[in-house]
């Protein structure tokens, strides 16, 4: 759905940053995608393949780091991973509304020359 427009702005940012560093090519593009970011990694990869042609990233490798949804349980004073997006603490079974990780949608690094 919206992965195309997201990929497009990612490529725009990457191009700007690469140009600012006087690079002529992007060899690797790394992004971080949280489980709750609303972005589907496969769709993002497809959008990259479709949009990279003619850009500085035409020959680039695309790496996606997926970040799990991690909640904080105040009761146990500990983090737990909300696997299958169940926000119940596996120790005390209380629901946690305190999400610490999982919303990330970031361009983390570029390899350029």
């Amino acid at each position, binding site marked *: *759905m919206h992965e195309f427009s997201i990929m497009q*702005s990612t490529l725009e940012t990457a191009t700007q940053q*690469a140009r600012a560093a006087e690079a*002529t090519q992007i*060899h690797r593009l790394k992004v971080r995608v949280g489980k709750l970011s609303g972005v589907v990694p496969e769709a993002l990869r497809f959008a990259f393949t479709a949009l990279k*042609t003619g850009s500085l990233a035409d020959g680039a490798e695309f790496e996606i780091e997926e970040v799990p949804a991690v909640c904080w349980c105040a009761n146990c004073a500990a983090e737990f991973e909300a696997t299958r997006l169940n926000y119940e603490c596996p120790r005390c079974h209380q629901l946690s509304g305190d999400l610490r990780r999982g919303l990330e949608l*970031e361009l983390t690094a570029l390899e350029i020359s």
Partner: protein
Amino acid sequence: MCQECGCSKPGPYTIDGKPVKASTHTHALPDGTVISHAHGRDPGHDHHHDHSHPHQILDLNTGILGGNDRVAERNRDAFEALNLLTLNVVSSPGAGKTTLLTRTLNELKGRLRCAVIVGDLATDNDAARLRTTGAPVVQIATGTLCHLEAGMVAEAMKELDLRALDALIIENVGNLVCPASFDLGEALRVVLHSVTEGEDKPLKYPPMFHSADVVIVTKTDMTAAAGFDRELALKNIRQAAPRAKVFELSSRSGDGVQAWCDYLIAQKAAAKTSH
């Protein structure tokens, strides 16, 4: 994304493997004007190097939706400065956003001065229904875009006299996926879930439900006809949206609408005392 219109037409693309220099497309602006414009593309790098470049790693750690988030923060600052309670109302198509808002606007008459910004791919049918309440309504026709973005809301805000308002209600495009990623600057994100959609919507669309401040179960007058398992649905909502306040109502019969309207008035009053 296109800077001129916010549309999601891809900029750089190819035909038969050849890069296309620019693409022209036509679409309608919110006021109905039809325009054509081109999306330019980067000139690229068309000379050859016979020397080698050392590879370099650039650590960026920059938010991909940084542009939208910055505009959303600007919107939020403006809403807070104006002491305006702002809602972003989202649901799948047909869950009853417009019907609920029409009812809400009528109930709140004389108690809370509201305006609506409504987004749809096409038609101003929803805007026309909302205007029957007498509230100011601004329509955003998104064209091909499946969600509202903060910049569109910033533009639409210019059409309203915000100082004369207590609450601004943004009715998003009917879609439970994409609007989850786009902050509009709202104070409350309100997610609707109609009884005709079954009980597992909250589990199927976790990002949207997790981001909800309020979840409203709508069309409760149809619970029996839809064979809706209320207990199971509430359990699923609590699981997917642990921090959300939950309402159950029927916009048609009016059951439960009062509690929702009282909540909005209380939220507005709370915002006032905190400033």
